[in-house]
């Protein structure tokens, strides 16, 4: 059985604690001294009695002295007697004082004895108390150890429980995952089966459709063929009729043309104006595309043909204007703007143009007329 490191650490600290408690009782004797103080206090109460006794005694003594001093002026004649009396009195006082002293000493001894007795008694009590205390503490420690042991046991139990729970959890998870996987596989199989079925279905549908389409197409063709035959027949008839009509019309037109030729000419001008602008609008984009296409073709052809001569002058360039026939043949090419200043260079450019004839040009008549009938080439080193 395994314990977690945290648990072992906790256990260690608890044991450390127990160890400290076990050691602590050896320091206890200090308490005894404190207890003896209480014993001395009891003696002081007796001192008060002694004080009273001393005070009472001193009072007696005072009275004696006062009586003696009152008798002093009477010492005249009988001085000697008085002296003797005085000496006796003194002796008495001395005796009296000694007696008191002895009494005091006796009392002090008694008191001492009493004190000693009390101290012994107190020590005994303290010892008992200390013993009791130790016993109590040991009891408490035992109790605590017991608690710790219980806690440890509890913890161990808990740990084990947790581990068991985890294993169980993992097992459960795995089981769950397997279950899901299985479900998925089943699902996929199902899906595939469905798809297959769908494909088969679709294929069949397509086949059906193709057959249907073919059938339809054949039908349509047949219809078209029939329609065409019909149309041809009709058109033949129509043409026949038209030509007959046209002949009639022509005759009529001939008659009328002579009459209003001038007005018709006017009308014709307007019509063609309209048509030109329409053509220009529609062909604008295509024209641009064609221009760049033929520009590239012309560049390719002339670049390949041009023999650029050796020249000692740097950065030569010459512009050549070409006039073309509608089939691209060069009618004329000439150097404009005075040329490059190098005859060989200018001639090489001219020759390139003539050699390239016929030039690639657009077949669109309008585009040709507008851009390629006459244009310029600029020949220059790269």
């Amino acid at each position: 059985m395994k314990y977690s490191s945290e648990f072992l650490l906790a256990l260690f600290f608890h044991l450390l604690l127990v160890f400290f408690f076990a050691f602590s009782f050896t320091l206890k004797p200090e308490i005894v001294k404190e207890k003896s103080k209480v014993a001395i206090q009891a003696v002081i109460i007796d001192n008060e009695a002694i004080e009273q006794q001393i005070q009472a005694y001193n009072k007696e003594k005072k009275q004696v002295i006062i009586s003696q001093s009152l008798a002093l002026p009477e010492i005249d004649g009988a001085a000697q007697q008085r002296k003797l009396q005085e000496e006796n009195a003194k002796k008495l006082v001395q005796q009296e004082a000694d007696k008191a002293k002895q009494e005091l000493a006796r009392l002090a001894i008694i008191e001492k004895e009493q004190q000693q007795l009390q101290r012994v008694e107190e020590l005994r009590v303290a010892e008992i108390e200390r013993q009791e205390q130790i016993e109590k503490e040991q009891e408490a420690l035992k109790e605590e150890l017991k608690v710790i042991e219980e806690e440890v046991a509890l913890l161990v139990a808990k740990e084990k429980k947790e581990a068991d729970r985890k294993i169980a959890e993992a097992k459960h998870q795995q089981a769950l995952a397997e279950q899901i996987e299985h479900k998925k596989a089943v699902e996929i199989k199902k899906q595939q089966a469905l798809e297959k079925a769908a494909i088969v279905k679709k294929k069949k549908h397509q086949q059906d459709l193709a057959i249907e389409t073919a059938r339809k197409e054949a039908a349509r063709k047949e219809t078209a063929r029939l329609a065409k035959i019909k149309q041809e027949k009709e058109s033949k008839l129509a043409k026949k009729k038209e030509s007959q009509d046209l002949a009639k019309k022509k005759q009529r037109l001939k008659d009328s043309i002579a009459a209003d030729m001038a007005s018709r000419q006017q009308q014709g001008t307007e019509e063609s104006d309209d048509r030109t602008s329409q053509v220009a609008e529609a062909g604008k984009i295509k024209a641009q595309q064609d221009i760049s296409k033929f520009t590239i073709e012309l560049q390719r052809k002339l670049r390949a043909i041009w023999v650029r001569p050796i020249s000692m002058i740097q950065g030569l360039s010459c512009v050549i204007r070409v006039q073309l026939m509608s089939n691209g043949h060069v009618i004329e090419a000439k150097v404009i703007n005075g040329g490059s200043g190098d005859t060989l260079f200018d001639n090489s450019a001219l020759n390139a143009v003539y050699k390239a004839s016929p030039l690639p040009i657009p077949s669109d008549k309008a585009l040709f007329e507008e851009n390629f009938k006459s244009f310029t080439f600029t020949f220059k080193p790269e």
Partner: protein
Amino acid sequence: MKFLPPIIFLGLCAIYSSFTYAELNIDITKNFETKVPIAISPFGSSGSQSENISAIIDDDLNRSGYFKTLAEEDMLSQPTAANQVVIRNWQILGQEYLLVGRIQPINTRYNIFFQLLDVSKNEQIMDYKITSVKGELRRAAHQISNLIYEKLTGNKGIFGTKIAFVSSNNDINNRNYRLQIADIDGYHAQTIVSSVEPIMSLKWSPDGNKIAYVSFENHRAAVFVQMLTTGKRIKIASFPGINGAPSWSPDGLKLALTLSKDGSPDIYILDLASKQFTQLTQNSSINTEPTWSPDGRTIIFTSDQTGKPQLYKIATSGGKATRLTFKGSYNASASFSPDGSKIVMVHAQGQSYKIALMNLNTKALTILTTGSLDESPSFSSNGTMIVYASRRGGKGVLSAVSIDGRINQKLEFQNPEVREPAWAPF
């Protein structure tokens, strides 16, 4: 009368719009240059001549550096007149031009007919008849080359122009120096002066009839002017010390030269008619190799004022000289281009001496040659080439380089050693 059909109207509109819109322009660019292909069909003849005219023309055009002629064996046909030409035959061979011609001998004279055709355009662009005499056919061929060259390039041709130079033998014990004149293709060489002592600094007079030179005959340097027609010569300077480096004024009436008669070498101007010398430079340094500008106003000369030879410019009327060259530690032996816009010089690059061209407007210096001991540069009469002397394989040879340095060809002479070239004027 019928009304105007719409299609004609469309056409009119298109023509109108082509005038109003910006004209289409297409750029054609090419980064490499090619020699212009030209075919010289062998000239026909009804007799026999010592000279093969078409071969001379072929050679001339090839040597120019601008043209590439077609080899005879590659020709599909060899027409001798324009009316025999099948232009397609030359077009498929990629030729730009075609020369056809024939020689017609009449007694001791020859009539030469030739036509130049533009193959691309299929157009005759030249049609000539020139006459020549026996022994002059080579010159006639050069003349034809020059006509073609000028027609096609716009520049005057220099085929058949003359060059003066000094040749010597290799015999150390029996040295012989000869001032010679020959065509630039090495033909028609003739000796003008022969001496056992060196001859140098040849300068053609502007009219091409005289040559000024320095001769060390009698162990002393002297400047001579020699008439080419009569062979007569005049000693024009033989002072003690240096007498050297003559240069003709553009009008041919004066000579600038170097004299050290008054101490250090200085530039003097000699009036040939009055025989008066005028000192142009006056300082303690060496001032030599004067060259007269084509406009006659300035003289460029070599001076070591700064310790190293550099080129300076001074007005022919005198005054202060200004320094022209700053690049490199050696710039000397200047010579003007015919139009006066450029000069050529000997420029030292480390231990080697090369020919360099300076544009006087921009002061930009271009090194044209790759030799190690190139010297004595002078311009061709059309300003496109520079002739100079160099050493190749231990021998002195003459070469011509184009002003952009791209065309460089050795001039062939039969002499073992050739130096001090000077290109004759037209």
